[in-house]
């Protein structure tokens, strides 16, 4: 690794470098990557000119393949060909078997009940499968942009809960890629759409993808994208349309024999093709090769198709009504309705959405590309390539967060549609005399009963001094960051004895499972864990050093001479640690810089607040 350059104190640091960043749309059906090149966000194409890959992974005898190559095995080797894995993310085996009747996989559960898939190369979890899909996309970005990426923005359905978000982030981190942000898909679409059209006012983004449905209501104003409310269903999409059509085909064909994985796949693909052709024509012919040797021929009209999918469309409209109400607006306040996701090509969807919002929805932008484009624009800004950008994204928490209380009830701590980042504290007390520990169970969802909400994490707070029931004051703080990810801390405060714990609900994988996943990940087959950790720590060291250097350049006046030289000393130590290969030394030097600059950082934050509030009037907003 090259030596880190350090400028003389007070002098300007290196000229601004263009950083490499990409936006990734990790979809249920297809995935794509985009990047800003020469000021314009474009979808990246591989050497064959292909701009998106099917989100399918095949675990074959000769290794893993992804995309079109994997899709070729969808029928012949269905058991080892994983499609639509996004629907499994953050879900337990019980969730999946309850919502999917027939899947061509051998499913099993991890130690904590999460769904895993048994393939010929071993048991894999949805994070690992997603990581395989991300790999070629990241490689494509690296080769097109000719360099290592500084970071990526990955899009997630707005309605994804904490476990699904954490899983998506972990999938990228398995590859050693820095995730700048998880960006909600409708927000990404709004960026691509809003910046293009210089639009102002309230817009609705209706996003019906392969496996998820989102509705977001946003206020667009001079570069500010403010999400007013979001709603949806993280298990509703084109796959469900395929499912009802498949059920119809099976019923019509009268076939009651065994459903092999290959046959299931074949029927699903047939259903999907029928759906696609009915977007263009009024009727479609179907042929199914049945194992008994008899082929089944049938016809599906648009009318029958519409009646089959009517309940699905209705579910999406109910979510729209709720979102409109949560946003505290009326449908007539909505200026435009933007359609995103491949499933919005279905004519009935367009018709019903148009009826509900009382306007023609916008279908002029490519519903498959707009999300990746929006992600690329934000990645470019987060990388620091556009310091003058006035874009600001204010997103919300999609589902309420709470704690289990006595009687199996959920107490909400942060309600849905609260703008993030957010921190909220709530106090709880003990139930029994002399109780010294408390079990905290963190939940996400809108329902009152614990069993109807998603369980995110459990942890215990110990060391509470024995007191009468109700005398202890346990303060539990929930903090949600800009990615929508939660961390929780708890503290007993009544007696002055403070106990504090920090928990990152991590989709229920045990530490060992996480460690073995990283070890297994192909990228690091050559290197060992330590080499990877060293490399990552060096990147963090550069970041800290660079950040401090530019902070000192701008705001040295906030420091006394002593304070400044302390920071400079810490920086010098960091630079020399960075030059070496001692992981421990680098960590210590980073910690030293952190301590030395603690007050400096908060003074700078205070200064930013004062500057923001001075000399601005209502008019120039």
């Amino acid at each position, binding site marked *: 690794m090259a030596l880190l350059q350090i400028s003389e104190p007070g002098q300007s640091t290196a000229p601004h470098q263009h950083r490499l960043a990409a936006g990734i749309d990790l979809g249920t059906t297809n995935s794509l990557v985009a990047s800003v090149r020469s000021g314009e966000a474009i979808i990246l194409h591989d050497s064959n000119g292909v701009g998106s890959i099917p989100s399918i992974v095949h675990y074959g005898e000769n290794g893993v393949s992804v995309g079109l190559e994997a899709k070729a095995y969808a029928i012949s080797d269905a058991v080892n060909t994983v499609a639509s894995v996004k629907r499994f993310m953050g879900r337990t085996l019980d969730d999946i078997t309850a919502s999917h009747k027939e899947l061509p996989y051998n499913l099993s559960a991890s130690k904590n009940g999460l769904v895993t898939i048994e393939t010929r190369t071993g048991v894999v979890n949805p994070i690992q499968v997603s990581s395989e899909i991300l790999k070629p996309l990241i490689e494509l970005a690296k080769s097109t942009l000719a360099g290592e990426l500084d970071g990526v923005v990955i899009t997630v359905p707005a309605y994804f809960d904490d476990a699904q978000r954490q899983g998506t982030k972990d999938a990228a981190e398995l590859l050693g890629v820095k995730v700048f*942000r998880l960006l909600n898909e409708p927000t990404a679409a709004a960026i691509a759409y809003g910046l293009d059209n210089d639009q102002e006012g309230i817009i609705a983004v209706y996003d019906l993808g392969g496996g998820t449905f989102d509705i977001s209501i946003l206020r667009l104003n001079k570069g500010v994208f403010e999400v007013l409310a979001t709603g949806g269903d993280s298990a509703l999409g084109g796959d469900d349309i395929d499912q009802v059509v498949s059920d119809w085909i099976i019923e019509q064909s009268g076939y009651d024999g065994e459903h092999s994985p290959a046959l299931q796949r074949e029927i699903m693909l047939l259903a999907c093709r029928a759906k696609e052709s009915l977007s263009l024509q009024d009727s479609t012919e179907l042929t199914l090769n049945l194992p008994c040797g008899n082929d089944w021929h049938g016809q599906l009209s648009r009318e029958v198709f519409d009646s089959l999918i009517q309940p699905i469309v209705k579910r999406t409209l109910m979510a729209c009504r709720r979102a409109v*109400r949560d946003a505290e607006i009326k449908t007539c306040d909505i200026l435009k309705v933007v359609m995103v996701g491949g499933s919005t090509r279905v004519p009935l969807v367009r018709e019903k959405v148009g009826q509900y919002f009382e306007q023609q929805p916008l279908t002029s932008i490519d519903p498959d590309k707009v999300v990746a484009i929006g992600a690329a624009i934000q990645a470019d800004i987060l990388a620091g390539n556009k310091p003058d950008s006035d874009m*600001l994204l204010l997103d919300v928490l999609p589902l309420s967060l709470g704690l289990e209380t006595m009687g199996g009830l959920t107490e909400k701590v942060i309600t849905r549609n609260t*703008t993030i980042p957010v*921190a909220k504290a709530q*106090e709880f007390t003990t139930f029994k005399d002399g109780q010294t520990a408390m079990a905290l169970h963190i939940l996400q969802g809108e329902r009152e009963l614990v069993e109807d909400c998603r369980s995110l994490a459990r942890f215990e707070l110990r060391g509470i001094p024995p007191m009468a029931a109700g005398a202890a004051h346990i303060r539990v703080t929930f*903090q949600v960051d*800009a990615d929508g990810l939660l961390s929780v801390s708890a503290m007993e405060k009544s007696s002055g004895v403070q106990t504090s714990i920090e928990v990152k609900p991590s989709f229920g994988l045990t530490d060992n499972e996480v460690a073995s996943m990283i070890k297994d990940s192909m990228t690091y087959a050559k290197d060992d864990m330590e080499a990877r950790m060293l490399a990552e720590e060096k990147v963090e060291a550069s970041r800290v050093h660079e950040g401090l250097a530019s902070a000192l350049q701008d705001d040295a006046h906030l420091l006394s001479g002593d304070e400044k030289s302390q920071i400079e000393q810490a920086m010098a130590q960091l630079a020399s640690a960075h030059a070496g290969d001692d992981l421990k030394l680098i960590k210590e030097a980073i910690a030293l810089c952190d301590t030395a600059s603690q007050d400096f950082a908060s003074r700078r934050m205070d200064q930013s*607040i004062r500057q923001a*509030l001075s000399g601005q009037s209502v008019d120039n907003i």
Partner: protein
Amino acid sequence: MNYFELFALPSSFDLNVNELRAKYLELQRAVHPDKFANASERERLLAVQTTAQINDGFAVLKTPINRAEHLLALAGIELAHEHQTIKDPMFLMEQMELREALEEIPSCDDPEQAIIDFGQQIDRHISGFEQQFLGLFTAGDELSLNTCADNVRKLKFMLKLATEARELEERLFGF
């Protein structure tokens, strides 16, 4: 934390919401974590915490009931987690009548219209209490402030009714 100070706005119930929103966006532009994507861990955490505070302040100040409660808290009257009850018999009688009216909505001839009327009735009560609060809080003496506190307690009752009316609407009309 005094949220009026955070937004450099006068401590008043009669707040210009447009001005609040403008200051909110200016503050967000300065401290939002997206501005610190490349900063050190500490600065990123600080940005998350500061933005969380600004978001909370905005949520408190923009909603009249929360703003009223915040003003009272700053004046030394803490209403959060209190167990004070309302002793105004007139008000309690009215509450009972409103509750009965709400319960009868599903069985009346035109529930859809009834629920709209009910909502408007509640809204009138709410703005009445808000007007009263404004006058009394400006007076500022101890008696007025205590009446203000009572006012906020009554507002909470009304808002609870409004929420229940919305939930009923959801059950009746499926959204």
